[in-house]
C-alpha cells in the first residue's frame, strides 16, 4: 500500500485505481485458481458504465476456482507515475501486475480504443504481438461488438470471442484448467484446442493472401481441424438466464451511474445502418416476471436510486407497459427512478414516459436519425413525419420543454435537402412548442440537435458503402450550422477526423496491425478523447508504412469482394445484406420482423428453427 500511496497521491481522481467498491470481489489466492482480468481500454468512468463488464465479472467470480479482477486505462498522470516509479499496471482488486494473470480479456466497444490496448500491454511489459508472447504470458482474448471485425488487431490478440460471452468464457477457462491439470498446456496447443470451441476465432491459425489491387484474394485456415467459418455464440434461452444479483456500485461520476437490467437481446426493427441490430439477432426477451424479480434484487443489493431498462430498443419489449407500471407502483414511494435509453419518436413513448416521470424527471433524447422521410426510409427507420410531429406536441403538452434530437450525417444517398430537413425539424419543434396552450407551457424551450457521422460497419447492408470524406463531412457540418438559426435550437456534432479513423479501422484488414502499433509508438493514445486525438500523426503513420488509409473507409466495395470479416458468421446472410442494400437504394421499406420473417438467415444459421415460434405461428 505504501508503494502505491506514492503514486496515488500524485494523480487526479485516485479512486479510479483503488477498487474495493461495494459488491466488488477480493479473493484469497488459492492453488489452482484461475486468474482473469477484464480489461477496458479506456478510463474507469467509461468502463464501469458497460453492462457486459458487470455481467462477466460476476459470472466468473461466483465460482470459487476463478478470481476475476478489473483494469482500466490509466490516465496520463498515472501512466507517468507508473513509469517514473518503474512499476507495472496493476489490477484494481488485488493490485497484481497483469503479467501474472492467466487471462487478460479486453472488451472492444469502439475502434478508437485500440491504441489504449497497446498502452495497457506496454505498461505491463507484455509484447504487443501474439507471436512474441511465450507460454508464461497470459492468454489475451477480446470480445464485444468490434470483435466482428477482428482483423485490424488480429496479430495482437490471441483469440476472439464472437458473440455473447457468458458460456464461452467459462468453456475457455475449463479448457485451460484441464490442460494445466493434465500438463498438456502450451500456448500453441491451447489455442489450437480453443479454436474448436464454437464462437472462438484464433487468428494465428488462418492465412490471408491479397490481390494486386490490395483486396483479399483468399482467407483460409492453416490446418484441417480449424473451422473455415466461425459461427457466433448466443444464449438460446434468455428468459430466466443468468443475471448478476448484485453489481459493483462504482466510485466516481461514471457515465451511466445507475443499475441496469437487460430486458432483451436483439432487435426486430432492421434499421440498415445499425450494426448491433444485425449482430445481436435473434430477439430474445426476458419475461416481465423475470425482469421485475431481477430489478428487485438489484435495487436491494445496491441501493441505486435509478435503474435503466437496457436493450437496443427498450420500448419494443412486448410487456414494457406492464413492467413500467408495476415498477413505478412499487418504487414511487421509495424514490427509485426508471430510465430508458434513447427513444423512438412515437406516441407509445410519451405514454410510458408519463409513468416514469412520477419519480424523477429526466431529459428526453429521441433518435430521429435523418432529416427527411425519404432518407429515413432509405435507412429503414420506420418513423413517419406524423409520428415525429404528434410525439413532439404531446411531449410539450405534458410539460417537457427540453428535447434532444439525434441524427446522422453522411448516410448513403444523402443530399443537402436531407440536411436542410434536420434544421427544419429543429425549427418545427420550436413552433410546435408555442402551439401548445399557454397554460401548459413553462418558459422557453430548448431543442438540441446532435449529429454523429455515419460510419459504415461490417455485417450491415451498408458494409460496401464508401464513407464520406473528412472534407465532405466538414462541409455538411458547416451547412447545418448555418441553417440552424433559431436561438432556442442548439447544435453539436462529432469531429469528422475521428469518424474517418473509426471508418478506416472498422473495415480494416490485417495490414492495420502494424499501423496501429506504429501509431501507438509514435504517441497516439486515447484517440476517442478530443484532447489526445491526433489525426495528422495517424496520417503520418499510414504514409510511413505506405498504406493508403482511404482504401478502407471512402472506397465503395463490390459485392463480389472478399471482405476481411467474411470468415465470421453472425447469422445474417450476405444475400440478405445485399438485398437490403438494394432496397435502400430503391427507397423501399422492410417490415419489423415481428410481423413476419424477413429471411435474414439467423433462424437457419444460428437457431435451426423459428426465431419466436409463438409469434410466427
Amino acid at each position, binding site marked *: 500500500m505504501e508503494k502505491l500511496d506514492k503514486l496515488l497521491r500524485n494523480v487526479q481522481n485516485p479512486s479510479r485505481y*483503488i477498487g*474495493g467498491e461495494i459488491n466488488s470481489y477480493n479473493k484469497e489466492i488459492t492453488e489452482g485458481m484461475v486468474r482473469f482480468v477484464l480489461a477496458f481500454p479506456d478510463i474507469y468512468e467509461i468502463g464501469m458504465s458497460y453492462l457486459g463488464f458487470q455481467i462477466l465479472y460476476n459470472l466468473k467470480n461466483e465460482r470459487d476456482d476463478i478470481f476475476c479482477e478489473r483494469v482500466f486505462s490509466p490516465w496520463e498522470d498515472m501512466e507517468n507515475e507508473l513509469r517514473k516509479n518503474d512499476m507495472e499496471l496493476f489490477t484494481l482488486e488485488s493490485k497484481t501486475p497483469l503479467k501474472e494473470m492467466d487471462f487478460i480479456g479486453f472488451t472492444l466497444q469502439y475502434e478508437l480504443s485500440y491504441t489504449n490496448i497497446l498502452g495497457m500491454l506496454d505498461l505491463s511489459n507484455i509484447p504487443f504481438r501474439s507471436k512474441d508472447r511465450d507460454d508464461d504470458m497470459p492468454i489475451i482474448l477480446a470480445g464485444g461488438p468490434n470483435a466482428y471485425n477482428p482483423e485490424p488487431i488480429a496479430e495482437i490478440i490471441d483469440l476472439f470471442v464472437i458473440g455473447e460471452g457468458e458460456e464461452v468464457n467459462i468453456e475457455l477457462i475449463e479448457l485451460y484448467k484441464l490442460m494445466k491439470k493434465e500438463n498438456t498446456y502450451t500456448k500453441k496447443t491451447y489455442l489450437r484446442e480453443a479454436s474448436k470451441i464454437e464462437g472462438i476465432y484464433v487468428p494465428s491459425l488462418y492465412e490471408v493472401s491479397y490481390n494486386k489491387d490490395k483486396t483479399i484474394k483468399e482467407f483460409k485456415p492453416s490446418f484441417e481441424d480449424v473451422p473455415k467459418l466461425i459461427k457466433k455464440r448466443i444464449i438460446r434461452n434468455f428468459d430466466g438466464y443468468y443475471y448478476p444479483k448484485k453489481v459493483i456500485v462504482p*466510485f466516481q461520476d461514471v457515465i451511466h*451511474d445507475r443499475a441496469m437490467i437487460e430486458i432483451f437481446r436483439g432487435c426486430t426493427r432492421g434499421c440498415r445502418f445499425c450494426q448491433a441490430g444485425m449482430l445481436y439477432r435473434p430477439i430474445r426477451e426476458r419475461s416481465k416476471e423475470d425482469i421485475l424479480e431481477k430489478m428487485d434484487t438489484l435495487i436491494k443489493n*445496491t441501493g441505486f436510486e435509478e435503474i435503466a431498462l437496457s436493450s437496443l430498443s427498450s420500448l419494443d419489449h412486448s410487456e414494457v407497459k406492464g413492467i413500467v407500471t408495476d415498477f413505478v407502483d412499487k418504487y414511487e414511494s421509495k424514490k427509485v427512478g426508471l430510465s430508458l435509453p434513447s427513444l423512438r419518436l412515437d406516441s407509445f413513448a410519451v405514454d410510458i414516459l408519463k409513468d416514469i416521470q412520477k419519480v424523477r424527471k429526466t431529459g428526453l433524447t429521441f433518435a430521429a436519425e435523418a432529416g427527411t422521410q425519404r432518407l429515413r426510409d432509405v435507412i429503414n427507420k420506420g418513423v413517419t413525419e406524423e409520428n415525429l410531429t404528434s410525439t413532439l406536441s404531446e411531449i410539450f403538452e405534458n410539460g417537457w420543454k427540453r428535447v434532444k434530437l439525434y441524427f446522422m450525417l453522411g448516410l448513403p444517398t444523402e443530399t443537402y435537402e436531407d440536411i436542410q430537413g434536420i434544421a427544419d425539424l429543429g425549427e418545427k419543434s420550436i413552433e410546435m412548442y408555442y402551439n401548445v396552450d399557454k397554460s401548459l407551457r413553462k418558459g422557453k424551450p430548448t431543442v438540441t440537435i446532435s449529429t454523429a457521422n455515419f460510419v459504415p460497419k461490417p455485417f450491415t447492408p451498408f458494409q460496401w458503402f464508401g464513407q464520406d470524406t473528412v472534407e465532405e463531412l466538414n462541409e455538411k457540418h458547416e451547412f447545418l450550422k448555418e441553417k440552424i438559426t433559431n436561438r432556442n435550437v442548439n447544435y453539436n456534432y462529432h469531429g469528422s477526423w475521428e469518424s474517418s479513423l473509426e471508418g478506416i479501422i472498422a473495415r480494416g484488414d490485417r495490414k492495420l496491425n502494424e499501423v496501429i502499433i506504429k501509431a501507438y509508438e509514435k504517441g497516439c493514445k486515447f484517440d476517442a478523447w478530443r484532447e489526445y486525438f491526433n489525426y495528422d500523426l495517424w496520417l503520418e503513420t499510414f504514409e510511413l508504412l505506405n498504406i493508403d488509409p482511404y482504401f478502407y473507409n471512402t472506397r465503395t466495395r463490390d459485392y463480389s469482394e472478399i471482405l476481411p470479416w467474411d470468415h465470421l458468421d453472425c447469422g445474417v446472410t450476405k444475400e440478405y445484406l445485399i438485398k437490403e442494400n438494394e432496397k435502400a437504394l430503391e427507397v423501399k421499406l422492410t417490415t419489423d420482423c415481428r410481423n413476419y420473417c424477413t429471411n435474414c438467415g439467423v433462424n437457419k444459421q444460428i437457431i435451426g428453427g423459428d426465431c419466436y415460434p409463438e409469434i410466427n405461428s
Partner: protein
Amino acid sequence: MVVIVILKLIVKYEKINYAKYLAHLELSGIIQRILRRLELPLEYSSGYNPKPQIAFAAPLSVGTSSKGEYFEVRITEEFDLRKITEIDPSFLPVGIKFIDATFSTAKNSIMAIVSDASYILKITTERQYEEDDIREKLNKFLAQDEIIWEKIRRKKKPITKNIVEFINNVFLLNTNNKEMIFKINVKTGSNGNLQPDVIVKKFIEYANIELSDEFINIQRQEIFKNVNSEQVPII
C-alpha cells in the same frame, strides 16, 4: 403554535486504507446508496430529483485518512440504531466503517457545531534525530508569539496569517526509525480553521529538519464540539 422538529441521524465513521482516496462527493453518493439500501426512513428533498439530505462535519482532503468522521442525514422517524452500528460490512466499501450513531433534533447543522480536530502526522527524515533535541526545539517553536504562514492561492495573491491562535497543542510522540510522529490539535470549522500539516511544515523549516520524502502522512483522529469550554467528540 406549530413546532417543526427536524430529526437527524448522526453517524460516526472511519475512512482508512484506500478509502482515504475517495473524494467528498463520491463518498456522499456512496453513503446515500448505503442508507437507501438499509431502507431507512429518509427525508428526501423535493423537486425533480429527490435526494436524501446529507451533511458532513468537516471536509477532509483526499489522501487523508480518519478514525473519526461524521455525517448527518435527515430522517422522518427513529429506528433501531443497530441497523447502523451492526451493519453488514459487505454494504460498505473497503476502508469505510460505521462506528457509532445517534439521533439528534439540534437546530444547528453538524457543520456549525464543529470547533476543533485532532490529528496524527508522520514525516520521514533523512537521518535519525535526537528526540530530546527535537522536543526542545518544538517547545521553543510553539512559544513564539507569531508563526507566520503564507497561504498560496490559485490565481490570487498569497495571504499571510499568524497561525498561533489556531494551534491548541502539538506533541511529539516519537522519533524512531528516521520517522517523527506528531499529535496535533487545531481549531476547525467556521470559527477558525487550520490544516495540521501547515504547523509541521513550519516546524520542519524552523528546526532545519531534512526530509527523505516531502510527503506528510496525516490521519485525523477526532472532531470535537465545544461544550462549556471543553472539547467533546461530536457524538
